[in-house]
């Protein structure tokens, strides 16, 4: 694939993530914090998010599997996940966490957890694809096009 085409694909792909609400403007903030002195900032922070989230979702699954669920333990986990997803701009994960906390003490926490997991795996998948596209461009000697606002 030609470089220009790869760059266009990346831009279109990124735009779609914003339009679908998977990412919000906080992700753009992260990109702005990346520069020559910190060229991998975005992927570093996103990797931290993945690590945090995998751990939290694992803990949450275990907590909810118990005979008697201790909701006092569940809420801090969801609060933390809400915080980190908000920090990187994973809007739909954040929103799913907000819903989870509202319904935490009612019946369908299991459904809430599934929703959070679904949104998380979606954004994880999308971001991993995004980083791959970027890597392909860089490997071909090209530059990552700056994200254009106002679309």
């Amino acid at each position, binding site marked *: 694939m030609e470089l220009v085409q790869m760059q266009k694909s990346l831009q279109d792909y990124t735009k779609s993530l914003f339009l679908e609400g998977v990412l919000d*403007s*906080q992700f753009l*903030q992260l990109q702005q914090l990346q520069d020559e002195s910190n060229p991998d900032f975005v992927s570093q*922070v996103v990797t931290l998010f993945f690590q945090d989230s995998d751990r939290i979702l694992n803990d949450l699954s275990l907590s909810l599997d118990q005979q008697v669920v201790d909701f006092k333990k569940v809420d801090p986990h969801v609060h933390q996940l809400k915080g*980190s997803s908000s920090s990187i701009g994973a*809007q739909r994960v954040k929103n799913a966490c*907000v819903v989870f906390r509202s319904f935490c003490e009612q019946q369908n926490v299991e459904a809430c957890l599934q929703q959070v997991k679904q949104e998380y795996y979606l954004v994880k998948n999308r971001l991993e694809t995004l980083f791959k596209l970027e890597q392909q461009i860089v490997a071909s000697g090209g530059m990552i096009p700056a994200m254009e606002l106002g679309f």
Partner: protein
Amino acid sequence: MGMAAAESQFHVLAVDDSFLDRKLIERLLQKSSCQVTTVDSGYKALEFLGLRQGIESNDPNALSTSPQEVEVNLIITDYCMPGMTGYDLLKKLKESSAFKNIPVVIMSSENVPARISRCLEEGAEEFFLKPVRLADLNKLKPHMMKSKLNNQKLEEIEEPSKDENGTVAAAVEPEIKDSAEVGSKILTLQSELETKQELLQVAQQEEQTLSNNKRKSLEEGLSTDRSRPRFECITTAV
């Protein structure tokens, strides 16, 4: 140290129990040309400043810096932390004669008006909703400038040049406040110019920042879901 304000950077102490958020705030502050120290708890923050409540520092592993050596121009702390909350830290700082003049900023992911007003009443300079943005940090420059200026004036008191009477007049303190105010007004104007230039570079975000002003949010009662309105601001921006 005695460096001129123009040469040395502002030093910010950032406190957050989340590793991810520490990385973020560190980068934000670096991008705003600040020197940053991050710690993961209020206790560590107090330790760094040299405020070990009732515990003498006989530990050879303890930080060797004394309050006079570590100049901190601003402390920015998360609110929700285990053990000592950001509010607890704020209180402790304001209760200490050594550190009550260091400006403190609180960050929180929750928009709770009662929490915000409590922090501001306790002496916090600003309350930022997370995620904190570059544009938010521009508000901090005047506070840090003033703090640095005050530190320099205090250094001058401590090393006074002998005048004819060889005394340091008691009237020095009120004088300092005035000149510090004038000085900080001038510097505020300078930093406002800088701020305007930076805002021009991120023009769309300026719109968002104005509408997301934390104190305004108290009056207007904006919802906690800030992300959607912000995204709409982007699409409608020219």
